[in-house]
């Protein structure tokens, strides 16, 4: 009985892991599509944001569930933590650099805040 239970948990873990990997890959494809299709630098960063969060996060979650032993799992969790701290900083650096070098964002007409 207990053995059956363990096998069931193991299969469920693998299925969820593979599902997370597939979903993460889909998120990365959508993010890459966004990089190509959106209007200007600022909008394209939102596409990159999908790759950074949904894409990387789900792929790492899938790898975490499929990892063979706990030392690998710890390393994957650490990579996830590092990415969560660094990727928004990098995105912010690009946005700030773009603004300071005078790239004006395309703004929708119903935008409240004009640049000042």
């Amino acid at each position: 009985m207990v053995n059956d239970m363990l096998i069931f948990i193991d299969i469920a873990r693998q299925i969820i892991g593979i599902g997370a990997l597939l979903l993460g890959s889909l998120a990365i494809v959508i993010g890459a599509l966004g990089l190509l299709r959106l209007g200007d630098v600022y909008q394209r960063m939102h596409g990159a944001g999908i790759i950074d969060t949904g894409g990387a996060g789900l792929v790492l979650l899938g790898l975490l569930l499929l990892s063979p032993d706990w030392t690998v799992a710890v390393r994957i969790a650490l990579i996830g933590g590092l990415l969560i701290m660094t990727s928004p900083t990098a995105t912010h650096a690009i946005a700030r650099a773009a603004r300071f070098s005078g790239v004006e964002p395309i703004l929708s007409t119903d935008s409240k805040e004009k640049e000042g």
Partner: protein
Amino acid sequence: MPIKAISASTALMFGLWLMLSGHYTGLLISLGLISAIGASLIAYRMGVLDEEGLPLGLLIRLPKVSFWLIWEILKSNIDVARVIINPASARPQLVRVKASQKTVAGLVTYANFITLTPGTVSVNVDETKNEILVHGLTKSFCDGLADPEMDERVSALEGKSS
């Protein structure tokens, strides 16, 4: 209190060493401990072990918001994906968001959280006015920022003492 910061940094680094090394003999563990202490002392001498370099209270309280943050990230991932599939629906906006955090580390955390949720990117952080200039992909993302929930949650991370 330098002792508190040094011992906290030593504990963090030694924990990291234990997780990553995979060698558990007496000699190697004591060498790892000595390196952790040495690195902490050097960091203290460099002056990076202050509230900004090692915001302990913030780090300890971080797990409390992580599940909420992951849920928010997933929701806005789907919203941004929808805009990407139909790029004509993008209505980019710049908005100024008031931040209620009192420490620099808290303000940076708030700006990072804004950037971390897809659809909003913090473009500029104004420390003096406690304002963050945010670029949003559509109006609904910017309206989401007008809701002070994220701001309040990050302020709660700072704790009451600071």
